[in-house]
């Protein structure tokens, strides 16, 4: 604005003057010669503020459950350690060689265990960091805090560093770091730059998993195989999505992620009823008319897709604002189209 004109003089217009015309915000048209058009703008403070339901319910109070499991884990570890020490001592008493072999095994096991634990802890910390980033970004979207938005974007860039596909997007974002951009706009910019390619990939992953599940359910001979396969596919999907958005969940990470996804599904499930359950059931009904197995396959696929969408919400480091949230309808379309093509 001021780049074009270095400085514009102050000016005041009386609204009652004949040369001044007050216009409605939606009215357009060029000002007639010699007149001044005043267009009042909508008051930003009066626009509704969209507030998402919190992703994960706030934990409150002391976590007795966690304490219990930690304590039990410690006891089991101590007991096992004691058993192993006793065994090694017994073996030494019996034969020197056997004792050394057992000692070597014990050291190798301890080493591997510590690495596994470290990896798990790292994965958990990373998931927690992403979750916190999500909350902070949501907060910035509300408060429009500039400094905080910069901090969030820097964190995000660090997180995205491991993903080589985002090199160009990262460079673009860094080039905007010094521009005058309000907090909320900065988050939206980061979302558009960094999340767009990932969202595309995530959508592909979810629809692929859904397809696979529906095909396998349709052709599998036994219900037990269905169940196992659906479970494995769901776990795989969640892990892939978490990796895509920057997390590296281990076993414990997967458990906590699964809990969050299911919790989120429970919260958002109710909202989704209105928009897509009808068409789901309708589609399912038609498919079931053709063949019962085919109908089950489609339904399972849709449920997997819904799980995948919930997983995207939980694993994505930014809330959906600038980009549209992928809807079940899009994925269902993919699924049915594929089915039509196969049929």
């Amino acid at each position: 604005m001021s780049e074009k004109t270095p400085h514009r003089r102050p000016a005041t217009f009386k609204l009652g003057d004949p040369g001044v015309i007050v216009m409605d915000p939606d009215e357009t048209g060029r000002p007639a010669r010699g007149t001044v058009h005043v267009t009042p703008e909508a008051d930003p403070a009066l626009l509704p503020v969209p507030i998402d339901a919190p992703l994960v319910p706030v934990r409150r109070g002391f976590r007795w459950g966690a304490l219990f499991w930690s304590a039990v884990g410690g006891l089991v570890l101590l007991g096992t350690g004691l058993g192993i020490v006793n065994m090694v001592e017994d073996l030494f008493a019996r034969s020197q060689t056997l004792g050394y072999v057992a000692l070597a095994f014990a050291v190798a096991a301890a080493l591997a265990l510590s690495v596994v634990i470290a990896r798990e802890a790292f994965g958990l910390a990373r998931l927690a960091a992403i979750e916190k980033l999500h909350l902070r970004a949501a907060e910035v979207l509300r408060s429009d805090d500039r400094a905080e938005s910069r901090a969030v974007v820097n964190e995000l860039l660090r997180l995205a560093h491991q993903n080589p596909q985002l090199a160009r997007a990262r460079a673009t974002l860094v080039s905007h770091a010094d521009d005058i951009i309000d907090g909320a706009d900065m988050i939206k910019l980061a979302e558009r730059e960094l999340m767009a390619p990932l969202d595309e990939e995530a959508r592909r992953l979810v629809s692929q998993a859904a397809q696979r599940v529906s095909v396998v359910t349709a052709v599998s001979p036994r219900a037990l195989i269905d169940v196992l396969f659906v479970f494995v596919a769901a776990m795989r999907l969640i892990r892939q999505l978490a990796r895509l958005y920057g997390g590296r969940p281990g076993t414990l990470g997967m458990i906590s992620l699964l809990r969050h996804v299911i919790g989120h599904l429970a919260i958002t499930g109710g909202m989704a009823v209105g928009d897509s359950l009808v068409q789901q059931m309708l589609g399912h009904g038609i498919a079931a008319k053709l063949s019962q197995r085919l109908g089950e396959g489609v339904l399972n696929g849709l449920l997997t897709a819904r799980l995948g969408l919930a997983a995207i919400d939980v694993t994505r480091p930014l809330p959906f604002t600038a980009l549209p949230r992928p809807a079940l309808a899009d994925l269902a379309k993919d699924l049915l189209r594929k089915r039509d093509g196969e049929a």
Partner: protein
Amino acid sequence: MPPSFSDIVEEARLSARALLDYGDSFFNPTVRLGVTGLSRAGKTVFITALIHGLTRGGRFPVFEPYATGRIARARLEPQPDDAVPRFDYENHVRTLIEERRWPNSTVDISELRLVIDYQRQNGADRTLTIDIVDYPGEWLLDLPLLSKSYEQWSVESLALSCEGPRAKLAAPWHEHLKTLHPEGRENEQAALAAAKLFTDYLRACRDERFAMSLLPPGRFLMPGNLAGSPALTFAPLEVASDGSAPDGSLWAMMRRRYEAYKDVVVRPFFRDHFARLDRQIVLVDALAAFNAGPEALHDLEAALSGILDCFRIGRSTILSSLFRPRIDRILFAATKADHLHRQSHDRLEAVLRRAVAKAADRAEYAGAAIDVVALAAVRATREAMVARGRDKLPSILGTPAPGESANGEAFDGETEVATFPGDLPADPEELFNGGFRGLSSTPSETADFRFLRFRPPLLERAANEEPALPHIRLDRALQFLIGDRLQ
């Protein structure tokens, strides 16, 4: 200057008081909110809007405890000090909403206690007490005097009065000063005349056209109940900054009175209201300085940095809150942001950030959290886009106060106007380098900025209910200042 005996006594007094407060706050958590601002910065309006918003309910989407519904209610309670007048909240609200006038400038100190009943995030019911003090902004200018001797102050005041537009305003006083001999015999009439001329000069500097800020001693402008007393009858003399006064001279008399002023007026004010703050909001009216010119802006910067040096700022620790309470959060707020279109708010913030850079750096270094925000406690205008020919001017709509004028036209307080106040530069340095013309050096037609004063907004009143006051970012200010105490 090594600490004198009276300074040590003062410190001990403050520590004892802090200890007492600490015990009290165990049972009754209290936040002492310091609303700091020079005169006309909008302290009274800010306090009124804050109380109104919390007690009657306002739109505060960013103020988390309020937006999520954890604040059950806020109510006014009797204040702790019986000797201080009560902040006349009801009257100010009536003036704002019914008469659509801004409250008159504050002439004396007043106090109010606000109690917030809220539920913590873990479900426990709690209350938080907020003590707020309102006072004439002029008095704040006295705080830097605490660390200055009479001679230092004289030299500085004289040097200042010869600079820029001040020199012309101070001419009568300078004339009189030439006739005085600091080492001559003490003379009550000479002192009276000097004090009067000095006060006139200070008062002239305050005019809207000059909008100077650095005008100590503050009680000269707003004497309160001390008008005419000897403690207010002194003025700077032409003396050396390290000289000593002969007994019985005019110099010695002035110096005695200056010290009395510090002891009787400044120290108790500081002790009672500023030494024990927890949170601080510094309200700055930068727009008046833009109106007046670069000198006013520099003056504002100097006044702010002098005042902020007096506060105790830094991270709170257990030890510090026991003996030497510190301010651990400071919000610098550019008030009257409603006089600018939203697009310029960032630039206004940048200017303020530049003006308080030194104080902000120091506070950050000491471990306090700081933030800068452009806010309007009561929003008097709406925004509009004005198309004039090919130009699109981001403007504001409002009703100027009676007596305001623009383009040579005076307003009656009823007509609504759209006004474009001028573009703020993207780089605040441009302003501080004197790259603009204000009313102090040029007539209003060629000034680079023109910020009119608007009347408070016309509010639609629902049945029997006081309407909520519109605001800009008041909720963000609240979230920063007390949000963490309401977790």
